[in-house]
């Protein structure tokens, strides 16, 4: 495992192009495009203000830089560095901006979600979509890029609009049976749209592409409901994480629950392995390394850690959330399927230091990783069943069915890994700190415990 040197970035804006060749980072006003393998700067663009959001187009030719406080979007071309495009939303303001799947249209959501403006870079034409809903996930594109689903709120009722991304033709417009639609997501095969209600009501609706209601699922009433939803890449399963600390899996044939995964505080009676991160403290006052340590700077504070396998029963530390606060820190907030749909990684918010990995074939718990600090982010390798996670410290953790490893990010000055992203080839990881980023190149051989 090799680590590159550390580069600057702001706002956690660092993305690899969809074709995997370039790495774009935002540093203050500037947009820096590097080559992924050599990390040499290929292009440098200057934006008009601090960039709030940056996105690659699907064909890796253009980069969108949105500056929300200025209401501006600037588009840069990789092929023609002197090509420029600036979209000014004017007084209407800008809340979010994104590419369309064809890479030629930009959808801007105005302030207060008044409307969504569709700007065409080919024709300079503008289209408007009225009454978009301001919710957790109001717009979703199907994976093949043909359809866009948009949540609409009109006359105190929720609707879903399905657009054909080709010409923004409104294909379907139907009302949903939700109280307050919180999000929608296309299945990876693009035929089913999952729509879920806000946390006040547990309701997940499944609509077919042509707008027919296929099924409704509601696990319970009254208590806080759905917190997160995720489709498996094979479109076979829909995982619903809720505030009752359980994940329910629906199958795509009957849309009924086939199993539920619980996250108890005391793990017992399971065949899963529980990996606990244990810190290896370097010997204090050893004569061998004082000078070395001083020159290395903060390495004294970078304690090595390793994983130990704990025998059952294991108790996971639980932090009880404040009952008076809204959206309590309890429940399954993150769900991630591995690319082969074999594993599901979950995180329960009141057990923030633990990541649970479930085996979808056996429908049982496969492993639990207990970290020393709260897990910030985890992501599956796009090709292999390998999970990378970070916990806001200087280490990178990797789990695979073969074992678990904890790697110290060898940087000076303590690089706290806040989030990470896999490269689309699965060969490297982009680690983002607060103001820094670092690339980690994986070895092709397997890691050991």
């Amino acid at each position, binding site marked *: 495992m090799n680590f590159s040197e550390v580069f600057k970035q702001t706002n956690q804006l660092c993305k690899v192009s969809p074709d995997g060749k370039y790495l774009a980072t935002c540093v203050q006003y500037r947009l820096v495009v590097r080559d992924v393998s050599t990390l040499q700067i290929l292009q440098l663009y200057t934006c008009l203000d601090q960039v709030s959001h940056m996105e690659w187009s699907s064909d890796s030719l253009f980069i969108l830089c949105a500056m929300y406080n200025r209401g501006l979007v600037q588009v840069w071309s990789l092929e023609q560095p002197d090509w420029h495009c600036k979209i000014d939303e004017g007084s209407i303001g800008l809340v979010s901006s994104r590419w369309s799947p064809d890479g*030629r249209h930009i959808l801007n959501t105005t302030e207060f979600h008044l409307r969504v403006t569709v700007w065409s870079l080919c024709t300079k034409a503008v289209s408007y979509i009225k009454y978009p809903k301001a919710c957790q996930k109001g717009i979703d594109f199907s994976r093949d890029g043909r359809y866009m689903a948009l949540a609409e709120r009109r006359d105190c009722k929720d609707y879903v609009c399905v657009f054909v991304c080709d010409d923004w033709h409104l294909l379907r417009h139907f009302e949903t049976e939700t109280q307050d639609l919180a999000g929608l997501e296309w299945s990876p095969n693009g035929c089913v749209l999952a729509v879920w209600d806000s946390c006040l009501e547990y309701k997940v609706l499944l609509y077919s592409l042509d707008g027919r209601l296929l099924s409704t699922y509601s696990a319970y009433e009254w208590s806080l409901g759905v917190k997160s939803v995720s489709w498996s890449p094979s479109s076979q399963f829909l995982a619903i994480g809720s505030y009752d600390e359980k994940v329910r899996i629906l199958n795509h044939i009957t849309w009924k629950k086939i199993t539920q995964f619980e996250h108890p505080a005391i793990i017992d009676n399971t065949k899963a392995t529980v990996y606990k991160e244990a810190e290896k403290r370097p010997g204090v006052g050893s004569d061998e390394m004082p000078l070395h340590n001083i020159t290395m700077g903060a390495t004294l504070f970078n304690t090595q850690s390793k994983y130990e396998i704990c025998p059952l029963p294991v108790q996971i530390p639980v932090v009880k959330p404040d009952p008076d606060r809204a959206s309590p820190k309890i429940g399954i907030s993150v769900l991630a399927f591995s690319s082969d749909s074999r594993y599901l990684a979950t995180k329960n918010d009141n057990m923030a230091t633990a990541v649970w990995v479930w085996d979808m074939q056996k429908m049982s718990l496969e492993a639990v990783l207990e970290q020393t600090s709260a897990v910030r982010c985890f992501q599956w390798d796009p090709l292999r069943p390998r999970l990378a996670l970070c916990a806001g410290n200087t280490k990178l953790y990797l789990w695979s069915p073969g074992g678990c490893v904890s790697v110290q990010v060898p940087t000076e000055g303590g690089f706290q890994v806040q989030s990470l992203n896999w490269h689309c080839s699965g060969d490297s990881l982009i680690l983002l700190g607060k103001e820094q980023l670092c690339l980690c190149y994986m070895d092709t051989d397997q890691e050991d415990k």
Partner: protein
Amino acid sequence: MPESSTVKDVLSSSVECRTSPLRRFSLSALHRNSLGVFCSEDNVQECLSHISQEVSSFGLRPAWTEPGSGSELNIVAALNCMYDLIQLHRRGLRTLENMEVEQLKSNSNVDFLQLSTTRLKEQLEISKRENTGLLERERQLQLKVKSLQNCLKNEKEEVQKLQNVIASRASQYNHEMKRKEREFNKLKERLNQLLVDKKEKKQAIDVLNNIGRADGKRSLWKTEKMEAKHEGEMYKTLLSDYDTRQRELQLENAELRKVLQQMKKDMVSILSSRKPAAKGDKHEHGGTQAASEEEDDEAFDSSKESVELYCVHAREKLTNSIRLQWRRLKSHVERLDSQVSSAQTGESKSTDAVPRETHEEEMDRLKLEIQQCKDFIQAQQQLLQQQLSSPCDEETASLLSDCYMLQEKERLGDEWKTLEEQRKIFERERRNFTEAAIRLSHERKAFEEDRATWLKHQFLNLSPFSDSKKPSLSKSKSAFLISAETDSSAAVAPEKFIKHRSESPRCVPLTSPSTADLYRTLCLIPEDSSTKPKRKTEHVEESSVFCGNAPVRHKRWDGIQDRTLSQEKNSSI
């Protein structure tokens, strides 16, 4: 005397009463005589004395003072005595009466007490029963109380939960409300700002140049046809998805059906193998129907094997038949289990005792077998140990070491012997051959020399200066030589033979190639003989050929020749 008769009666009765404490002296007379009276005319005095004694023992005044006063009874005294006795008797009777009365009373008391005890016991029983009933009721009521308490607790918990839910919902609503209010306020501010702002910043896009579409095609107008096309595409996507799903399900179905069929076959085979053993079961189930159904199923299977069970009825039939088989198998297994358990507990019926006994026999047999095997292994082990550790003599060891291969070894030895003999014979023959060849060569040489001399002689004869002596000499010489040679050869032959023999070990390598030579020479010799009369030169060439053809062998020949010649020379000398 009537008085005496009554007295007699009384006396007799009293005598009857007191037969045991009879005084010793002369009371035999006072016994009842043959007439059955106490007193008769002869024993009056004795009777009197006796009576007086008795009376005095009763504590009464005796009737008379002395017996000597005469036989006259003091009537007054007697009457007093009688009266006293009567009183005594009366008193006795009265006490008897009283006592009887007392007894009756006590009897009645006892009865009364018994009655009362039985009554009390019954009452006790009743009250005990009532008590247990009450206790039971109390227990039930306590249980009810507990369950009610539980219910209450549950309800309280639920209420608490609901309250929590309400609280969380309320906080969520409040949060949402606040958020919306904040947004509303922002909106209001913005609206105000916009109203105040004179300059309205319009939306605009500023692009250097239009870029082409991603797919390079031209964008199309939005028309109805396009809409229809979009609809069509959408339905196509959906249909293809349904298609793939249906195909997958079909495959899965086929797999499962296969598995079910396999299971059914297995179950049928298991059950049919148990049929002869469990004929009783068949009767239990109303066997003929079951058997026929099984057969039906099997027939059904074989006919439908190739055809897939698509229709619902066929599918149902399959699942039903599998369920039936499974039930049968389950019941059979349960029966076996119960049999085993009953055999274990020892409640053996006649039918169950048999398997137990057979089981025991089997166990014994197996144990015996185990023992035998163990003994066998033990013996083997011992033998092996002996083999390895026992120090036996060299002879026996050597004998024993190869004892298994003895026969083979003997056979091998015999064969070797025969081979050896054959080899020796062969060698002998070879030697004979070589000697013959040598002889032949010598003879040939001599013959050649003879010929040469003869030719020389001829030549010389032809010429005017001819020497007759020499050729003759040479002839004779040669002849002599030849003869000498032959003689010598003959003479030396045994020597040669001996020498060859002695030299045979050394000459062995020499003899073998020489046999090849031998054949060559033999071949050559007829050639020579054929060409002899023709040319001298040919002969010379031939001889040179003979000499030059195989130089090595020639050397050997020479060697042999030299040796033989030397031998000859030696011998001759």
